[in-house]
């Protein structure tokens, strides 16, 4: 992920792109790593009133440093509430979470996510952690944002296991399954670009390319057919201010930003 292009790393670009999607006066359920960095950046730049929620019970913290766990005391530092998972998940189910922010090991064209297993669930090649709060965020938040690496093994025709629902097999399928109406995957951010979902077909669609990345490169790193519009803008580069906040305030030790 460490391709340096003009003074910033790809991972910094991803964090900035993700941060821009989070609007002010909205709520976001975040996981550890890049999601929390992006939410923190949003809060320190364009969205000072972004409400950050952690599944273990932290609501509206003022993060002093990067939390290592979504349950550690940093997640309710100067928060408005330190409560329970039941409380947080209940308000997700009742419609109070605008964004759910997730990572993933595999994704398909409808945004279905796997974080459970690589290979057969009964004979796992690699056993992954499972859903955690991902299925909950992906089922209940109004908009799900996914941040992950893009390559042919990760952007697949069929995920090995649907841990977390995307649009399942197409338009209307979420509602048919009983999931809350008008919810679902919203954006996918990778090291190559930003993807969204076509309103009619609910299929994944390229929205922007990171500086220096070509359409060909994106297609070569995707195993399913991605919708490619005629005009594709470039993902905005991080500003000086964003980079400063990221490097000096949010993750000065480089726990996530300098991770290999």
């Amino acid at each position, binding site marked *: 992920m460490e391709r340096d292009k003009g003074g910033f790393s790809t991972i910094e670009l991803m964090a900035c792109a993700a941060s821009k999607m989070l609007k002010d006066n909205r709520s976001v359920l975040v996981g550890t790593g890049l999601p929390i960095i992006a939410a923190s950046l949003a809060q320190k730049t364009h969205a000072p009133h972004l409400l950050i929620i952690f599944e*273990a019970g932290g609501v509206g913290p003022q993060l002093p440093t990067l939390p290592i766990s979504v*349950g550690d005391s940093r997640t*309710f530092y100067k928060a408005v509430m330190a409560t329970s*998972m039941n409380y947080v998940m209940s308000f997700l189910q009742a419609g109070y979470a605008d964004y759910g922010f997730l990572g993933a090991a595999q994704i398909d064209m409808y945004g279905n996510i796997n974080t459970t297993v690589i290979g057969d669930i009964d004979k796992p090649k690699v056993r992954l952690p499972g*859903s955690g709060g991902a299925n*909950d965020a992906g089922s209940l938040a109004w908009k799900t944002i996914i941040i992950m690496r893009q390559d042919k093994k990760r952007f697949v025709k069929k995920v090995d296991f649907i841990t977390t629902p995307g649009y399942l097999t197409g338009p209307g*399928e979420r509602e*048919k399954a*009983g999931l809350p109406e008008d919810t679902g995957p919203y954006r996918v951010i990778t090291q190559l670009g930003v993807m969204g979902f076509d309103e009619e077909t609910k299929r994944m669609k390229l929205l922007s390319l990171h500086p220096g990345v070509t359409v060909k490169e994106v297609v070569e790193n995707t195993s399913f057919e991605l919708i490619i519009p005629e005009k594709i803008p470039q993902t905005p580069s991080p500003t000086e201010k964003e980079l400063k906040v990221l490097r000096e305030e949010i993750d000065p030790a480089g726990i*996530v930003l300098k991770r290999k």
Partner: protein
Amino acid sequence: MVEEGEGELLAWHDPDEHRKWVERNKFRTLKDKRMDLREAVKRYVKNGCYIAFGGFGHVRVPMAAVYEIIRQKKKDLIVGGKTGVHDTDLLMASGCASKVEVAYCFGHELRGLSPASRRAVEKGKVKVASEWSNAAFQWRLEAAALGLPFMPVRVLLGTDTFKRSSSKVVKDPFSGKRICLVPACYPDVAILHVHRCDIYGNSQIDGILVMDFELARAARRLIVTTEEIVEEEEIRKRPDRTVIPFFLVDAVVEVPYGSHPCHMPYLYYFDEEHIGEWLKLSKTDEGVEQYLDKYVYGVKDFVEYLNLVGGVKKLNYLKKLEKLQVRLEAPWMER
């Protein structure tokens, strides 16, 4: 019924059967329940039982009790992996657990995947009985806490996580929409680590509760390990802070730093050096043995263990770290 998950149904009871069990086995007597950890584990953690731990990941997990379970070489435990991280990893690695229900296991969040428990599952030594999400798991506990057979929820729907769970999908008679029913989960025993309690078990937790509020009521037997035992008067001064009342509790064990190497909010932070040592050693079966010989079988109690992991100097550092007074250092951060 519209659809049924194929996961094994575990820790479920008919609500009337559970009520009768409660009537016969749980008493409202105000009684001194203090005992040592050895006794509490011996008495309430039976081979083959379904067990769940309080806290979340590496946060407020009753590690002293986990070590004691391993020391007593308990067998065939079924673990409720409701974000079971360090506890579950050690129980699978040590051969105490043979089955697990998974909402989140096999990973240490930012620190990476768990080598030992992954190996145990990938080689078939530990069986995954069912898959869940965190919300689904805690709603199972909530159902049990309410004395209900199930809880209707709007998660798991449409996914393989549902197919591997022991939930059912029905048509909701009110809205006409499909809804998922997750079965109540009544663990045979739960162990929680709290900030303070009295000798009767009235317990207070500072910071987030995670699922402990529900778990304490869902479990049949409940061991509370505590940073300190306080006078009953202390509890009665602030009854609004009590999250577990005495009549749910079967054993009270005072274990200062009882969550180490995990993190106790407001008191001490993660011992990343120790967690890092475990993650490194647990890459091989020999390493697991080496770790257990040194830190579990090789020490007579938790005090000896705390000295071995760095004693007062280390504990002071972890307290300062929690107060943001020193810089975090972690082996897994080194590059």
